[in-house]
Each structure stands twice: as C-alpha cells, then as structure tokens.
C-alpha cells in the first residue's frame, strides 16, 4: 500500500478541513464533505496501487529471477514505475 489507510483518511481531512479553515470554501454538509474527501483520496490511492501491481508483475515476468528487495529489484522498480507513470501522463 502506497499510503496507509490512516494516512489516506488524514489527507482527506487535511484538504477538506484546511480549505474550510482558510475560508476558501464552505460546505453545506460537513460530514458528507469529509466522507467525499476521504473517499476520493482512497480512489486516488487505488489507481496508484494498480500501477504498483503492474510494475511488480513486470519485474516478476523477467526470465531471470530478481528477488524483491534486492538492489537490482529496486532499480528495476523505479525504472518501470517511471515508464508506467509516463504512459499514464502522471510524471512531473
């Protein structure tokens, strides 16, 4: 998991509460706003995890066995991650 459930929930809270505290937005239903915020962060994380799974599978599919956690695995992970994110237009 790229972000723990607690962190996902916290980020949702951070955005919803932060914008309200700074008087940038108002909510007609605070509870619903908080639920929507958290749900959307979860949705984002699910997307990111799909990328993670794809990258891990790409490494696994290599003919030579690259043990997870080895320096080579890490290098490959970063390389394939970059490629996949680029494919999805998510790279800076």
């Amino acid at each position, binding site marked *: 998991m790229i972000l723990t459930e607690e962190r996902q929930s*916290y980020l949702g809270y951070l955005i919803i509460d932060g914008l309200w505290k700074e008087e940038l937005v108002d909510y007609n239903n605070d509870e619903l706003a908080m639920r929507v915020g958290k749900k959307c962060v979860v949705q984002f994380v699910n997307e990111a995890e799909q990328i*993670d799974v794809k990258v891990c599978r790409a490494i696994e599919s290599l003919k030579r066995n690259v043990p997870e956690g080895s320096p080579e695995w890490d290098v490959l992970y970063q390389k394939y991650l970059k490629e996949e994110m680029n494919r999805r237009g998510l790279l800076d």
Partner: protein
Amino acid sequence: MSEDRSEKSQLNSVKTLLSFKEKSLIQERECVCVFKKEKTMRLGNKQIRRMVSLVLKGLKEHEVVTFKQEEEIVFNRACELVLNNFKEERNLDQEVNLMMDDLESKNPGGFERYKMFPLLKKRLAKQKGIIL
C-alpha cells in the same frame, strides 16, 4: 534465534539512540543519504494535483461545496496542503537517515539499514505526532 537476538540488540540500539536524540545531542544537518528500501511511491506534483482534483471533483459532484475564492486558488492551496504533508515526511526520512548514519558508525558491520529504517521512522513519527 540468533536473528531474534540481533533484532533485539538493534531495537535496544534504537532505544538508546532515541533517548540520545531526546537530549538534543544530534544536530540537524543536511542529509545526503538517499537510502530507501521500503517499497513506497513518492507522490510527485502531478500525482498530488491528480489527488486534489479528484477531491474537488467529488465535492462538486455531491453539490456539497461553495467556493469562496476562485477555484484555481482553492485548488493550488489544497495542493500546497498535501505537499507540505509530504515535505514533513521527507524531513522525517532525513532525520531517520541521519540517526542511522550515527548508529551505523557506532556499530560498524552487522547493521541492516533496511530493517532499521521503518522501525526508526515509525517510532520517530509517533513521537512527533506525524501520521504515516
């Protein structure tokens, strides 16, 4: 068994180091160590913008939000809020790496950074009230 002992001894070293840290004997300095064995994805600006745009889209779809400022201003501020949260984590990583450098110099050989990193990070985050 010997692995258990080694882990216990590493944990003891962490405890010692943390009390050392509490006494403010470790100075903050720029960290050049980029060691990272955890499989975590660092969120870049584009990803953060994607996350925030999903949140704002969700709020609008549920007709639960009224913008008191231009939407672009709100969007940028929300991105900053998230970015600051990740900066906080990066600073924590740097601090942990510094502590590990220190610990490693005191225990040359037999020091497994990749095992220590998450342990130390979790502990320090708890102390500082940072949600990981």
